[in-house]
Structures are given as C-alpha cells and as structure tokens.
C-alpha cells in the first residue's frame, strides 16, 4: 500500500499543478503554443501513467509496507531532522555554527548508535574538535580562495 499512498499524493500534486497551469499568461506574439502547453502535456501524461500504475497495484492485491516511513525511525530520523534544522538555521546562525553543530551532533550520535556509548569527555572532544576545525577551514577555503558566498549569520564572520 506504500506505493499506492505515494502515488495518491503524487496524483493530488499533479492535479493541483495542472490547475495552476491554466493561470499561466498567454502572450499574443508567442506562436510556440504558450507557456502552459508543455507542462499540460507532461502533467496529462503523468496523471494517466499514475492512474494506470494505481490500477495495476489494486489489481495485484499485494500489500507491501510503506518503506518510506523508515525515514522517520532511529538514526535516519536524527539525520534528516538535524540536516533540516541545520539548513533552516543557517541564515541566522551562519554556515560555521549551524554546520559545525550538525557535524558534531551527527558524528557523536552515530558513534553512540553504533558503539552504544559516547566514551568519556575526552573522546567526545577528540571527535568534535577536528570536526569544528574542518568546518572553519572549509569556510575560509570556500569564501576566501574560491569566492563562494557562505552565509555569515549574526556573527558576521
């Protein structure tokens, strides 16, 4: 049923996008079929294909687990959640702080999930400090040598 739920969500999204295409402005001088022609063609084909796949799933009667849900369990949940928090906070905290926090948090969490303990304070520091040093180095390499604009955040660095 997992795939059926996924396809249902996809179908709804396609329906909404198809409705949106009717709002694309038509330009009189544009003789190419207009901005809406190609997306409507693709969405139409996609809706037909999704419906066909849904019929096949229903006809087969197979009940498979919703594999996607494993993303919300254990270390995967921690990874995806910490990545999301890191991305969301990056504009305010800056690249160095948010990515350092993500890296230190993930490495130590992963270590704990594999080994069952974090080790002593020294072990945590030995894992974390090189991570922070690495992020700081990357920040300066990318901003100074490669002229990439990484978010500085409130610290302004």
């Amino acid at each position, binding site marked *: 049923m*997992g*795939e059926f739920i996924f396809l249902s969500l*996809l179908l709804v999204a396609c329906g909404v*996008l198809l409705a*949106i*295409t009717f709002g*694309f*402005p038509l*330009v009189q*001088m*544009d*003789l*190419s*079929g*207009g*901005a809406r*022609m*190609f*997306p409507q063609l*693709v969405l139409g*084909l*996609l809706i037909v*294909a999704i419906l*066909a*796949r849904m019929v096949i799933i229903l006809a087969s009667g197979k009940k498979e687990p919703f*594999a*996607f849900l*494993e*993303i919300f*369990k*254990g*270390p*995967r949940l*921690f*990874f*995806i959640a910490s*990545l*999301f928090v*890191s*991305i969301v906070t990056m*504009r305010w905290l800056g*690249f160095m702080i948010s*990515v350092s926090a*993500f*890296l230190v948090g*993930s*490495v130590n969490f*992963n*270590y704990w*999930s*594999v080994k069952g303990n974090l080790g002593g304070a020294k072990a945590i520091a030995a894992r974390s400090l090189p991570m922070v040093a*690495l992020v700081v180095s*990357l920040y300066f390499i*990318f901003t100074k040598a*490669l*002229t*990439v*604009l*990484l*978010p500085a955040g409130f610290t302004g660095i």
Partner: protein
Amino acid sequence: MEILQAIGAVLTVPNLVLILAGVIVGLVFGAIPGLNTPIAIAILLPFTFAMGVVPAMSLLLGTYMGGVAGGLISAILLRIPGTAASVATVFDGYPMTLNGRAAEALSMGTFASVFGGIFSAIALLLLTPVLASLAIAFGPWEYFGTVFFGLSLVCLLMRGRMLKGFIATLIGVLIKTVGIDPINGIASRFTFGNAELDAGFDLVVVVIGVFALPEILYTSGKLGDIPTPQKFQNKWFFVPTLRQITVQLGNMIRSCVIGTIIGILPGLGGGPAALIAYAQAKKFSKHPDEFGKGCPDGVAASESANNATTGGALIPMLALGVPGDTVTAILIGAMAIQGFTCGPLLLMQEPMLFRTLIAIVIVANIFMFVVQASTVKWAAKILQMPRYFLMPLIAVFCILGVISVNNRVFDLFYMFAFILLGYALDKNGYPLAPLMLGVILGGMVEQNLRRSLSYYGTFWDCLKLPSVGTLFFILGIVFPLISVIGNAREQMRLRRASAA
C-alpha cells in the same frame, strides 16, 4: 607529422607543469559536488593573462580534461556524481563498490576516460571542418528530434519496470518546467511568486538531492553493518587488464562516437552523452540484466562518452567560434585575451596553433590517466573511514556544493524536498536514471519543440519536413513501442514458465 611537431612544441617543462597543475585542479573540482569545471577555469583564467597562448591553454585545457574525468571518483565510491556528466557512472560504479570491486570500477573508469578523451582529440584533428558544418546545419526541429530520441532511449534503462520508468521520466521533465518560460520569458511557472525559483531547479542540486543524500540517509540507518571488504592489489598504478580492455573495446568505441557527436551539438554536453551511451551499451550487451547491479560495461560506456564530449565541444569552438557550453565560452574568451579569434580563420591562419591545442588535449588526457590511476588506492581510502564519521562529512560537502552553485541558501530548501522525493521513488522501486534523463533533456525538448512550432507553424508542418529531426522523432516513437512489446512478451513468457 604536423601533429608530432605540435606535440613536440607542448613537451616543454613549463607547459607540462601547467597541464599537470590544470589536470589536478580539474580533478579536485570535478570530484567535489557543486564545484565544477567552469568555476575552476574561471578562477584560473586571471593567472593566464601574463602567459603566452600555449602555456595559457595548457593550464585551461588541462583543467577542462581533469574536470570532466574527476566526477568518477565520488560517483563510484560514494554514489555522489561530482558533475552531471558522471550521473550514469553511478548506476554501475557504485554497485561495483558495494560488491567489493571499487578498484576495478575506478581503473576501468579511468581507462575509459582517457580512451574517450584521446578518441575525441583524434576526431577533433580529422573531422573538425566536416563536423562543424554538421553542427551549424542543425535547427530547432533537428535538435528536438535528436533530444527526443535521446529521451526515448530511457526505455532501455527500465527493463521490467516500464511504467515506473515512464512515471520517473515524466517527473524529471516536469521538474525542468519550473521557472520563467524559456521562450516568451514572461510567464513564471510553478514558482508560487518566489523570485528565487525563476531560474528553475539547478541540475547539480537535483543530482545531489536525488542521488547522494538519500543514499547517506539510507546508510545512516545501518551504520552498524560491516561494509563489503574491497579487493585491492598491492600496487601503485591501477589499470584494467588487457583482457578487460579488449572486452570493452567495442563498447568504448561506440560510446566515444556518441560522446563526440553529442559534444559537437551546443548545449548538450557530458550528461546526456553518458546516459545515451549507457543505454546503448545496455542494448547491445550480451548480459543486459547485469546492468545496474555492478557491470563494468556501464562504467566504461559512461566515462568514455562523457570524456569524448570534450573534444567534440572544441570542434564548433575552434572551427566556428561557437561555444557549446560555459567552459568553451570561457576558453573562447581566453583565446581572445591572447589575441586569437576562434573561427574558420583560425584553422587557415594558425594551423600550427590548432594542432598544438589538440596536442595539449592528448597530453592532458595522458596526465589525467596517470594521476587518476596512481591515486586509486588513496581515493579508495575514503571507504575505510568509519561510516559514523564519513556520512555526516559527505553531507557537509553536499551542503557546500549546493550553496556554491548559486551562492545562496535557498537551494538547500528544495534540495531537501528532492531528498524526500528521491528516497520515496527509490524505496518504491522507481528507477532514478530515467528521472535524471528527464531533468537533463526535458528543458531542451520543450525549448526546441516550441522554437520549431514558432518557426514552422503546427506540429504537422514540422513532421512534414524531410529532415534528420523527423527521422529521429519517428525513431523516438518506434523505439519505446518495440521495447514495450518486447517487455510484454518477456513478462508473458515468464508467467507461462512459472505457471508450468
């Protein structure tokens, strides 16, 4: 004989050092997702202002050759295509790593890269005037037909999963429709009023979101599993055996021809070339079922084709002064800074310079091969790092790569959406290769279709044109139909066999 003279002119210590430096910089930029060859060349360009034309082009062409080949390391070892050109390398390169054959995949990929690069350099030498006129004869309808045919080859990548592959392809094409309408430049499509989406989704961000991070996410859930041990011989230079090369020779030559032709056509580049060559390799293979599960043929096809585009892309650049992509546009600029204008006059007035440039391409490819083949063992050390450390570290490089593309944090948000999409598709058995082909070719299909409609009137008017475009369009319809029928027959045969 003149080419030997040209090679002799390149073989001076300063030129060789510059080519080597360029190759190393290119390899590094190609291997890190988000960083790419245009960035590397743009950074190095100011250093060439005080040089002569040969040293300057040695540095820049070395970077170009290294950049295209560099993507294979991260594609094979980590499932992260450093560039779009390496996407097809992932399909079999990474499964080979999972099967403990990383060294074999890397050495085959490296050899295929140099084979493709040198093949295209020879094509550049022999065919430049002829192929350049071919490129200029291509109008929008011919482009549409070619790209549509390329897209239809996707059916070869989804044996047994035709409908799922079709859905994935259409999702890829749909992804490419986001942003300002490429033809009228007025309508803003699926941007929801967000100006940051006006330029659409960047290909590198989609690749990282769909391929790299879902794999890291998946691996995060099984960090305790012991990775497959890799078989590495105790040697410092990794090359495929003569037998492995002989087996792949036909496959590599076919892929090089595809890569060179696609390289000539402006705007296509290494990504489509590698995917189309991969699909063709699967079609002509005696063991197509092994593709996607760790088949060296897939790595050889992808890497030889994407490197063959480098020489192909230089053909219209040198013969016509037409840049096919960002890199060749910068190279034309670099030549202009040196006082040389690319175009038909260059071939007539500076034949020695033309041959010297080809010699640089050949030498750069040899250097790229030596550097990559001798660093295979070091590159593979990545796999020996503890996974609890490696996975978050790769994620950080992905974040850096995504921000580097447009210098903005916004791209990370839609990258996150693509992680979820990629994970959901992968876990439900939808092939990701067709999705990437859709993303890479979708925009070109729409633009050239609509340009054709503007130019010729209706679609029927286009179809009536006696051109290569019409031929390719018909092939693009017939080809998937044959695949669907073949697939249905195979399914029926399997059902009958299981019933018996």
